[in-house]
């Protein structure tokens, strides 16, 4: 291996960071990848498989092969439990890494920010999240399904018979200045709903929504099936109250009857949107880049135009993205980085 080759620091060990790291490493670039958590794979590694009779292409399982690829590549140094503490730029970047027990300094020629997203925390919405045991987010339910294979109510471990999904919680919402569609949530919820019905066929599911967003290549067919099996109501509920037996009373305006209505559910799933990563502001400050680059308000082209040439951003740090889109973004950005480094290095590995 060439000793004077370039080094790239990848911040974030989710699908995007891992994919970029592997591609860069394969091109002979040396990579240091950092992750603040104590495990690899980011949000994707928490997700359950949504297959029913066959794969529904949610993409979550790809993360495991990405982790294996990264771990086995000699050009990649992997640092869990690691925070970026300071970044200095002279000719190269000098980055101080806090690894809990020790502080390390590394040098890098380019930095890729793959810090991903933070799921919207819906405590402030009138849905009782955090107060009512049986109100969950899609991420909560995902973690649950991965662990237990079937759905159980947190309050009493009973199988819920009536489940409501509420879409756009924290997305398309001017009251919190989230003027974006989080793109992935319709797919997440509908796949999850069908997956639950596949294992627990007696489950009645109601889906409260604004507009169902297209996902996947077979959307049309999948959606037609969903419309047959799921009660679709085009409204966003007003609020939720808990009943004495831990059920949930959801009130909403029913567009069919043009009237206010209430309905009881055993469990309510909030389809929470994506927010810029909670570390975004801090990272932007350390990297000395405009914080707008990491707050979902600019399109990727404008962001690329305002970044210094040695700093790159990919994946859900740029805008809400599915797993497949994150892989694409990671590959494309790995290529941009490679192009930037190319004159100085690039030797056969």
């Amino acid at each position: 291996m060439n000793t004077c080759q370039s080094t790239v620091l990848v911040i974030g060990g989710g699908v995007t960071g891992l994919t970029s790291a592997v591609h860069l490493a394969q091109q002979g670039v040396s990579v240091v990848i950092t992750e603040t958590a104590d495990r690899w794979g980011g949000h994707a590694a928490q997700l359950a498989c949504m297959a029913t009779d066959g794969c529904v292409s949610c993409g979550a399982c790809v993360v495991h092969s990405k982790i294996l690829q990264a771990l086995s590549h000699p050009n990649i140094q992997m640092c869990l439990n690691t925070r970026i503490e300071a970044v200095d730029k002279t000719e190269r970047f000098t980055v101080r890494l806090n690894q809990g027990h020790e502080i390390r300094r590394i040098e890098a020629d380019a930095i890729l920010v793959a810090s991903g997203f933070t799921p919207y925390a819906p405590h402030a919405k009138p849905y009782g999240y955090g107060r009512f045991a049986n109100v969950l987010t899609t991420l909560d339910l995902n973690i649950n399904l991965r662990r237990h294979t079937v759905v159980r109510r947190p309050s009493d471990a009973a199988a819920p018979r009536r489940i409501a999904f509420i879409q756009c919680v924290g997305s398309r919402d001017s009251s919190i200045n989230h003027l974006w569609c989080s793109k992935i949530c319709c797919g997440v919820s509908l796949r999850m709903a069908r997956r639950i019905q596949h294992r627990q066929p007696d489950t009645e599911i109601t889906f409260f929504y604004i507009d169902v967003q297209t996902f996947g290549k077979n959307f049309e067919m999948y959606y037609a099936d969903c419309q047959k099996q799921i009660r679709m109501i085009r409204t966003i509920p007003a609020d939720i109250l808990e009943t004495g037996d831990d059920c949930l009373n959801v009130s909403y305006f029913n567009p069919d009857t043009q009237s206010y209505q209430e309905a009881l559910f055993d469990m309510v799933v909030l389809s929470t949107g994506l927010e810029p990563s909670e570390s975004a502001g801090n990272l932007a400050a350390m990297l000395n880049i405009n914080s707008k680059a990491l707050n979902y308000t600019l399109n990727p082209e404008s962001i690329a135009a305002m970044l210094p040439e040695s700093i790159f951003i990919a994946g859900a740090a740029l805008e809400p993205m599915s797993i497949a889109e994150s892989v694409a973004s990671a590959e494309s950005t790995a290529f941009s980085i490679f192009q930037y480094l190319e004159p100085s290095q690039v030797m056969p590995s």
Partner: protein
Amino acid sequence: MRTFYEAVTGDLMREQILLLGNGAIAAGIATSLLSRKIPVTLAIHNHDAGMLLKPLAEHPDACLLDIRTDTRVRHCAGTSSHFQIVLDQKNRQSVLDCSCIVIAENAVLTSCISRYGLKPSSHVHVLSNFFQNYETGSGHLSSPKTVAILLGLAVESHPHMAQTAMETALKLRTEHEMGMDICIFTRNLKVAAFGLETLYRKARDAGVTFIKFSDASPTFHQQPDGTVDVSFTDDISRIPFTFHADITIVDETVAPEPYVQELSRIFGLNMDAAGFAQTENIHRLSVCTNRKAILVTGGSRGVLSEAACHNEIQETVLTILSLMKGVQAMTGHKAEISLDTCIHCLTCYRLCPYHAIVLEKHPVVDSNACERCGVCAAECPRKAISIEDLTPSAISQQVRQIRTGISPASVTPMIVAFCCNRSAVQASHQAELSGLSIPEGVFIIEVPCAGGISLEYLMAAFTGGADGVLVVTCHEGNCHSERGNIMAKKRVGELRNMLAHIGTEPERILLKTIAANMPAELIQTAQDFKRRITNIGICNR
């Protein structure tokens, strides 16, 4: 300047790329490859090179570029090590040697005019080229007052189409004859792309009316003068309305270019339901196909948005560079055909999911394209194909080894679980990480793909002492070899029948599909199966 791969290969001309396309993505890929001194043959099936391809002639390395118009691919022989492509240029055929093929054709937009029961007229336009037609006069009307945009009413729409619709409405509303009434009629307004929610709000605030339908649909009545009456019951107020549209703008559906489907057949690519040259299989992310070194990008794989164009170009060139470096190669022993036993029945040639078998004097496996799935070896009627570490006797050996480790006095049944490396094996690692363990007596034998689990494997497990055999493979649609899991299912079914025939319980064998992120299910499957076998009883001691 020597590029890195010249240093590797030392052989420039062999690394020829065949690029098929005539749009922005083809132009971008060609430019990027040329700047890396990689020679490109650009075959365009139309008569003219598109506008975007013109500047390529000015490229400093244009000598490495061979542009051929009116040229179609007729035949493909060989594999990723060396493709031989028959190109047809106005009935003149020639053979091109290349190491990589990129399909970068645009998608085709088809107007929904007839789906809405409308006829083309100066009052009815198509969304994607509305301004072009409208402003060049043919469709220009004196002071139209009302505009209806029909979006996703016949077929579910797409963010790309929604964006065009909203931009068109906003432009008409703010830049053209002021005071026009513009209505967008839609079902699910697709805003799942950057900036569309803000665009929607901007259009709404500028006075564009959005009328959304859930179950009901509007009806269209076209007047003799070509204008259209859109009648509907408003979803919210339940009041019937008729909107008389001086101009109606109709959306389009997206389909693959018919040539892409022809190419898919020639190259043996698995297509998706719509006919794009890439299935939704997650192993194909982002621009790969079932064939090594045949890539598919942009409109040929169903990606439409202009914003994604730049990404598509970069992903494609990166994948080409990786292929050239050989970094994506599957390591390990590859399939080999024994010429002594082969009777040239070509079963392997037909079944190889990767088209890694080349017909020379005899069928030969191209080790570069072989992915070790074992489909050929399992299906060969003469048993003429083997993969060194995956022969039935190698499997038999593994089973015997497991058996010797078990005490003859043990009352726990011995279960062999054939696990696919890409799903079940990873799930078992995930299980370990979360503190779940495979039940005692269940032994995993890892295989690269369930498509290679032959009847001999299954028999070897039973004859080697297993009381039950579990086959755990990927979900349908998630198999790297596309159909390996389905073949495994078929063989398990066959063995069940055979077991029943010889008086052994067919329940002793089970196939389950699982994904890498289903650790809990894997453990549960193993536990349930172990319980089942315990109930049936130990048969082999």
